[in-house]
C-alpha cells in the first residue's frame, strides 16, 4: 500500500515535471545567451492554445507542431524588442507575458465561444514500456509516461552537449558572459540571441502543448498557471546547467506532487504550501548563491537604456 502511494507520488512528480522541464531547458539556453525572458508565461500559454487549435484540426502531432510554432511567434516578438531594438528585457518580457495571456484569451473566446465549454482535444496516452513499466516504485514514474516525457531524456543530454561540447554552444555562453569578447572572436551576439530566444520559444510552446495534449486534454484560460515563472526559478535553482535544470524540475514536480502524497497519507499539509514551496526554495537558493558565480555575467543587460 505504501509502495502504491510512493509510486503514485513519483509518477505525479515526473508528470508535473515534464512540461516544466521543457520550458526550463529552453529558458536555460536563452539565459546562457544573456537574455532573461520574463515573457515565458505568455509563450507557454500561446503554445497551449496552439496545441488546442492544431490538435483539433489535425490530431496530436499537429497539435505539438502548432504549439511549437505559436511559442516561436510570441518569442520572435520578444526577440525583436530585446535584441533588435535593445529594449529593456524585464519590461518587454512583462509585456510579452500579458500579450500572450491576452491574445489567447481573446482568440479562445472568439473561436470556441464565450461559454468556455469544455473542449476535448486528442491526447497522447502513456506509453508503457514492457517489464520496466512494472518495476516497483519507479516503474510508473519513469517508464509509463507519454512519449513527450521520454523525449525529454535525450533532450537534456542534447542541451548539455550543445552547451558544453559544441563550438556554437561555446559561442552562446560567451555571448552571455561577455558579448564584447564574443564579438572580438567574430561572433554576432545579436544573431546568437535571436536564435536562442526562438529555441526558448519552441520549448516554451512544447511546454504548453504537453499541458494540453499529454495531460489536461483541454484548454482553459490561465492553464499556464505561473509555469513560466517556475521555469525561471528552475533555471536559477539548477544553477544554469542542463543537468541541474532537470534535477530542479523534478524537485519542483515533487513539491507539487507532495499534495497527492499528503492526501494519501492523511498529512495535515495545506496544498498551497507545496505550491508555494518552489518559489520560496528559489529565493533561498538565490540568497545562498551570493559570491559564487553561477549566473551568466551579462544576464538581463541591455546595451541601450530605454523608458
Amino acid at each position, binding site marked *: 500500500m505504501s509502495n502504491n502511494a510512493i509510486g503514485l507520488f513519483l509518477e505525479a512528480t515526473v508528470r508535473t515535471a515534464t512540461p516544466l522541464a521543457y520550458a526550463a531547458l529552453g529558458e536555460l539556453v536563452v539565459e546562457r545567451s544573456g537574455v*532573461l525572458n*520574463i515573457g515565458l508565461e505568455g509563450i507557454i500559454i500561446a503554445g497551449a492554445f496552439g496545441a488546442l487549435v492544431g490538435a483539433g484540426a489535425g490530431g496530436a502531432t499537429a497539435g505539438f507542431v502548432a504549439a511549437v510554432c505559436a511559442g516561436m511567434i510570441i518569442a520572435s*516578438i520578444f526577440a525583436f*524588442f530585446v535584441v533588435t*531594438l*535593445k*529594449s*529593456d528585457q*524585464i*519590461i*518587454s518580457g*512583462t*509585456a*510579452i*507575458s*500579458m*500579450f500572450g*495571456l*491576452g*491574445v489567447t*484569451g*481573446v*482568440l*479562445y*473566446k*472568439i473561436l470556441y465561444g*464565450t461559454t468556455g465549454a469544455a473542449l476535448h482535444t486528442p491526447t497522447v496516452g502513456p506509453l508503457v514500456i514492457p517489464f520496466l513499466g512494472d518495476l516497483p516504485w519507479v516503474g510508473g514514474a519513469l517508464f509509463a509516461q507519454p512519449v513527450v516525457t521520454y523525449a525529454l531524456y535525450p533532450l537534456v543530454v542534447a542541451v548539455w552537449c550543445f552547451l558544453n561540447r559544441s563550438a556554437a554552444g561555446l559561442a552562446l555562453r560567451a555571448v552571455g558572459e561577455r558579448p564584447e569578447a564574443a564579438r572580438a572572436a567574430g561572433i554576432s551576439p545579436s544573431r546568437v540571441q535571436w536564435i536562442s530566444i526562438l529555441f526558448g520559444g519552441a520549448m516554451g510552446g512544447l511546454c504548453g502543448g504537453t499541458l494540453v495534449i499529454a495531460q489536461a486534454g483541454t484548454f482553459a*484560460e490561465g492553464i499556464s498557471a*505561473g509555469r513560466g*515563472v517556475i521555469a*525561471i*526559478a528552475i533555471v*536559477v535553482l539548477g544553477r544554469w546547467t542542463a543537468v541541474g535544470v532537470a534535477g530542479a524540475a523534478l524537485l519542483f514536480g515533487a513539491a507539487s506532487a507532495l499534495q497527492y502524497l499528503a492526501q494519501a497519507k492523511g498529512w495535515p499539509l*495545506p496544498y*498551497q*504550501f507545496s*505550491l*508555494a514551496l518552489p*518559489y*520560496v526554495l*528559489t*529565493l533561498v537558493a*538565490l*540568497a545562498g*548563491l*551570493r559570491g559564487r558565480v553561477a549566473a551568466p555575467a551579462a544576464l*538581463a543587460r541591455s546595451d*541601450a*537604456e*530605454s*523608458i
Partner: protein
Amino acid sequence: MTTPRWLTRVGVPAAVTVVVITTLLLVVLLGGFDLSRALRALWSGSIGSSYAFFSETLVRASPLILLGLSVALAFRAGIFNIGAEGQLLAGATAAVAVGLGFSQLPSALLVPAELLAAGIGGAFFAFIAAVLKRRFGVLEVISTLMLNFVARYAVSYLVRGPLQEPSHAYPQSGALPPAARLPTIISGQQTHLGLLIALIFAGALWWYLRSTAVGFRVRVIGAGPIAAASSGRIDVPQVIFGVFLVSGAIAGLAGGIQATGVTYALYEDISPGLGYSAIAVALLARLHPLAVVIAALFFGALEAGAAAMQRDASVPAVFVAVVEALVILGVLAIGRVRTQIAVGRLTAEPAE
C-alpha cells in the same frame, strides 16, 4: 536634440488611441460581434452614464492610480519592482485581518488602522525583496516575481484556513462589518474614499519628487546612478532600499482600499492582475505621478467599458490585457527612438 516635446505629448495619446481602436476592431471583426452594439456598450459602460463613470470607471481607476504610482516611483529610482501584485495581496490581507480582528473599534479608528496595516503589509513584502537585493545581490526582478506567487498561495491558504468565513463553505474571508468599510464619497454611487486617497498620494508624490531634497535624490539616482554617487555623493544603496519600501507600501495601500472599499472581503482572485496592469499605467504616464492619474482613469474606463461589452455584446473583456501589452511595447519602441537620437549624438570614437 531629444524628441520634441510636442511629439511625445501628441504622439503618445494618438498612438494609444490607434492601438485601442485597432485591437478592438480586430477582435470585433474576427469574432463576428455586433460592432455598433459593442461600441454602445463600451461607451455606456465607461463614461456614458453617471453610474458607469462614478461606480465603474472611478472605482476601477482608484487602485490603478496607487499601483501606477508604486511602479512609477520604483522605476524612477531604477528599481525593477514588478511585485506590485504580491504587495497588493499582502496589503489587502493585512487590511482584512485588522478589519475582522478589531471589528468592535469605531469606524474612525478602524479604517485608518486597516489602511495603515495595508501599507505596512505591502512594505513588508517589498522589504523581503529589498533585503535580498541589498544583502545578497538578488535581482529584484526575480525575487518580486517569485514573491507574487508566494503571496497568491498564502492568500489561497488563508481564505481556506485561518481567515475563512464562519460557515467554512466558500474560499473567502468573512465580510468586513460596515464600520470596517471605506465610506463612499458620492451619494448613490460606489465611488469610495480610496479615490481621494489615491489622488492625494499622486499630488503628494509629484510634489515630493519635484520639491524636496529626498525626492530629488531619488530622481537623480534613477537618471544617473554613477553621477549621483560621484558628483552628488549620495549613498545610492540606502536610498534605493528606502524607495523600495515606500513603493511596496503604496502597492499595499492599493490592496487595502480594494479590500475595504470594493470587495469587503479577502478572496483568492481579489486582484485580476492589477499589479501587472500598473506597469502599463506607469509607463504610459512616462513615470510622471500626475500623468499616472490620467493613465489610470483611461485604463479604468477601458476595463469598465470592456466588462460592459462582454456583458452586452459578448466581446471578450480580456482584450484589455492585449491593449496594455501593446501600450507597454509601444512606449518601449518610442523610448528606443529617443535613446537612439541621444546615443547618435554622443558617439564619437576616442582618438586613442
